């Protein structure tokens, strides 16, 4: 008699999430839900000018207020904390958590109130008087590069955070540049497209603002810190370092985290200050960010200016690409600030065989909130610049945008493919993604619809964009944090499985996807698997969740740890069953000898034996717990094609997205339901960048989009129903074949929506429209005469 499997394979299934019951019932614990006895509340007094010298701070009235425990100025905090560390190899200005003598952006902290509750803390902040000597605000990055109107950090002449990084064809490891190939490409060009493009500044806007609770226990000499972070282990490293503690003396906890989108990778001033004040005062302290505070105090994303030149033949064959990038990084280098635009350099080759690429990057300080990672982080910018240029080429040559791309694709047999900018694309089939998208969207039919609408006087346009992403961030050579991830799998004494992952999620659903994998790996019900994360006291090691790496790197680490423990468990089972371990099968919660199901031992029986091994099988230690560090040999490079159709109101310039079709190839998928959610969210942010989102500063460096009254976050009414289609090209980089999908949606969507707008307005002679598509901007194109 043979038993048929009663447990279905879960990998690849639309398993509903195990995280959800607590979240849909209001029973999850976010950082603002953490309360400790005796806890004090922090409020940061912040600069309301963009640039100025602090002449004097008078906190005496605030200090005297009932309920106020203490007020710390920048100078006092500087006695507790050294300059904040950064995570990139670029030289950086010293950055104090609280400004000591000069404020450099609106929102730069100048003092911290510690009070009984947040109401009193807020009141006390109003009583602090700061006297500033205003300095000229540096706002325009291209003027800033000339040192105008002033220099923000004296040790960085002309505000050059990174003077010039060359990349592409003819650049050697030492940075020596040989331009002969790129010059030759442009000399041979029959057509050259040149365009200055803006990839505007965005606010990440996780719906949960940031927050931190720090508790230094005087008696133990150890610190526990809860923070809304994407990477508790990195937090622990830096909090320990700045507080003069060992990493063993700090426990960092990422409780439930309400979205991050890259903005919660950075370790912020408030984290350091909360920890230092708790240590100084010996009481737990809490700080929770207001939304208007988040707009100035949480890092922004994007803000890269690109000068793009594309050389081609008249048949559409691309000969060369020049990309001169100027990144406006704001006032300081944060953890990854300097590194983000280098990903734009890395991905300048896009999905194309470009014989010669010259990309350069300059990073510039301005009196704005610093930039850092925001979903996509450098890759949407690269995609945008190159895809817009491909569209302009198609327009110039009167070719279909699909055809001009098809002519230049890297072909499937060319993988692994080393790009001119040094990336090694793992696998891909770009033409397949394009064809799938064209067919799914009904490209020819859409063109007919567009033309029919135009015949009625409507302004309807179609856009298409390819993308290739760099995901699964690692290896360690590319990340100062290390590019591995850690997983540990323990078979408990009762046969249930506890696993830990260093990939600390904030909405990605790792508790479900990782449990799906382990349930399949061991042939047990998913209900018997628990994934632990987010607490450095529970999770031994980790890097974190960013760069679409959870599944590809973190998932693989768990898979490897699972493999190790399974091997060991098989040896215990073999001893119990008096069989050879190679003959064992794990299924339906049992371990049996192949072909002899009646012989089976339950998982719990084998587990119990492993913990009370009498007699202990030779060569085995008791217990079933194994860990693995997975260091990927390379990144993964998911890719896809996005198509959109929009209509622009002729009278007002208001754009309406009518259709969005996305084909995304992320390799093998663990849970398609969760993958769809990730893509939807990415699309919404990419479309948001195209249509409604923009951080705007005034000439005086004041933030003009300092709340949701002025910074438009997309609403449900802004979107049509997205149409998703997949193709699957597994990666050879990890045993799961999974590439990562967290950021992909943001890449193709932005350029394809802009392309659709340009197409809609092509009758007005427009070739390119800078982000974002503000109705007035479109209206001016339509009503040029009136503008």
């Amino acid at each position, binding site marked *: 008699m043979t038993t048929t499997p009663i447990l279905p394979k879960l990998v690849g299934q639309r398993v509903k999430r195990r995280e959800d019951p607590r979240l849909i019932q209001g029973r999850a614990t976010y950082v603002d839900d953490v309360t400790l006895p005796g806890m004090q509340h922090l409020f940061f007094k912040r600069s309301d000018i963009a640039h100025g010298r602090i002449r004097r701070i008078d906190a005496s009235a605030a200090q005297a207020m009932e309920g106020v425990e203490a007020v710390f100025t920048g100078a006092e905090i500087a006695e507790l904390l050294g300059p904040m560390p950064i995570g990139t190899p670029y030289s950086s200005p010293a950055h104090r958590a609280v400004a000591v003598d000069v404020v450099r952006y609106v929102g730069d902290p100048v003092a911290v109130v510690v009070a009984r509750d947040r109401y009193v803390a807020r009141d006390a902040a109003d009583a602090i008087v700061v006297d500033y000597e205003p300095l000229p605000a540096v706002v325009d990055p291209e003027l800033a590069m000339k040192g105008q109107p002033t220099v923000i950090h004296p040790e960085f002449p002309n505000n050059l955070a990174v003077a010039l990084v060359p990349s592409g064809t003819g650049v050697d490891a030492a940075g020596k540049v040989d331009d002969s190939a790129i010059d030759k490409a442009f000399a041979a060009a029959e057509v050259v497209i040149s365009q200055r493009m803006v990839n505007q500044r965005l606010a990440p806007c996780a719906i949960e603002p940031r927050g931190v609770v720090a508790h230094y226990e005087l008696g133990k000499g150890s610190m526990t810190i809860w923070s809304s972070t994407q990477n508790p282990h990195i937090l622990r490293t830096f909090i320990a370092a700045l507080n003069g503690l060992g990493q063993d003396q700090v426990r960092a906890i990422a409780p*439930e985290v309400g979205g991050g989108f890259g903005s919660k990778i950075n370790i912020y001033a408030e984290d350091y200050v909360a920890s230092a004040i708790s240590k100084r005062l010996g009481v737990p302290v809490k700080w929770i960010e207001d939304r*208007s505070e988040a707009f100035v105090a949480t890092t922004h994303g994007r803000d890269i200016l690109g000068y793009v030149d594309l050389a081609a033949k008249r048949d559409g064959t691309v000969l060369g690409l020049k990309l001169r990038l100027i990144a406006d990084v704001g006032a300081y280098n944060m953890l990854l600030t300097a590194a983000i635009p280098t990903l734009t350099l890395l991905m300048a080759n896009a999905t194309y065989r470009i014989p010669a690429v010259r990309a350069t990057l300059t990073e510039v300080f301005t009196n704005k909130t610093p930039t850092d990672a925001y979903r996509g982080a450098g890759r949407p910018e690269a995609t945008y610049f190159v895809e817009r240029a491909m569209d302009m080429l198609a327009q110039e040559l009167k070719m279909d945008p699909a055809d001009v791309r098809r002519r230049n694709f890297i072909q499937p047999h060319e993988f692994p493919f080393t790009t001119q900018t040094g990336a090694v694309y793992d696998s891909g089939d770009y033409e397949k993604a394009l064809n799938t998208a064209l067919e799914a969207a009904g490209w020819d039919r859409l063109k007919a619809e567009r033309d029919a609408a135009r015949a009625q006087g409507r302004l309807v346009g179609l856009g298409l964009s390819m993308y290739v992403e760099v995901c699964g961030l690692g290896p360690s050579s590319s990340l100062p944090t290390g590019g591995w991830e850690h997983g540990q799998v323990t078979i408990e004494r009762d046969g249930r499985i506890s696993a830990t992952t260093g990939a600390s999620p904030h909405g990605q659903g790792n508790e479900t996807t990782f449990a799906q994998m382990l349930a399949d790996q061991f042939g047990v019900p998913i209900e018997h698997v628990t994934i632990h994360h987010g607490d450095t006291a529970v999770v031994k090691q980790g890097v974190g969740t960013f760069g679409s790496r959870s599944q590809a790197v973190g998932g693989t680490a768990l898979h490897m740890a699972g493999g190790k423990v399974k091997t060991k468990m098989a040896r215990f089972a073999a001893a119990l069953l008096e069989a050879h371990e190679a003959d064992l099968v794990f299924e339906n919660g049992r371990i049996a000898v192949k072909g002899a199901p009646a012989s089976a031992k339950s998982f719990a029986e084998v587990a119990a034996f492993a913990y009370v091994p009498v007699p202990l099988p030779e060569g085995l230690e008791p217990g079933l717990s194994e860990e693995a560090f997975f260091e990927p040999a390379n990144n993964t490079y998911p890719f896809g094609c996005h198509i959109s159709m929009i209509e622009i109101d002729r009278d007002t310039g208001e754009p309406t997205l009518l259709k969005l079709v996305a084909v995304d190839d992320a390799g093998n998928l663990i849970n398609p339901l969760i993958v769809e959610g990730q893509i939807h969210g990415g699309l919404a942010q990419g479309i948001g960048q195209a249509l409604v989102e923009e951080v705007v500063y005034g000439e005086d460096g004041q933030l003009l989009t300092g709340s949701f009254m002025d910074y438009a976050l997309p609403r449900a009414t802004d979107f049509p129903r997205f149409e998703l289609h997949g193709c699957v090209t597994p990666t050879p980089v990890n045993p799961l074949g999974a590439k990562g999908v967290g950021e992909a949606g943001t890449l193709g969507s932005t350029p394809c929506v802009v392309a659709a707008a340009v197409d809609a307005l092509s009758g007005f002679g427009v070739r390119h429209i800078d982000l974002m598509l503000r109705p007035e901007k479109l209206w001016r194109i339509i009503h040029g005469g009136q503008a």
Partner: protein
Amino acid sequence: MAQVSIAVNGKVRRADVEPRLLLVHFLREQLRLTGTHVGCDTSQCGACTVLIDGRSAKSCTLFAVQADGSEITTIEGLARDGELHPLQQGFWEEHGLQCGYCTPGMIMAAVTLLNDTPKPTEQQIREGIAGNFCRCTGYQHIVNAIQHAAGKR
């Protein structure tokens, strides 16, 4: 200080509060009902949505004293006798959430939507949650979740 008496999730709560205490802070900090979240300060994001006398409202834009004598339902009061509300079930089935932070407010807004319009069109659903921001989902699975709940009636 002012005295308030507010029925929260069916239980009358009496408390002395500072008049400036926002309703959301009363719920979260005095009653420890932390399922209601704060996501902005301008009444846009809807994370703080609760039902006041049966209608959705943003509890960050209300002082607790204004709610004196009212009946309030928060996310914690939605499930009955251990059984999930159909909207909670819908959000779970359809993957209507990722980070979960906007979810309680989104669900409470949807309760009112379905009270007013039991069989909404997709457009009505999107308009019904126009006062709630979600940064994770792109809203599509939220729409599905509300449709799921509406279909169960």
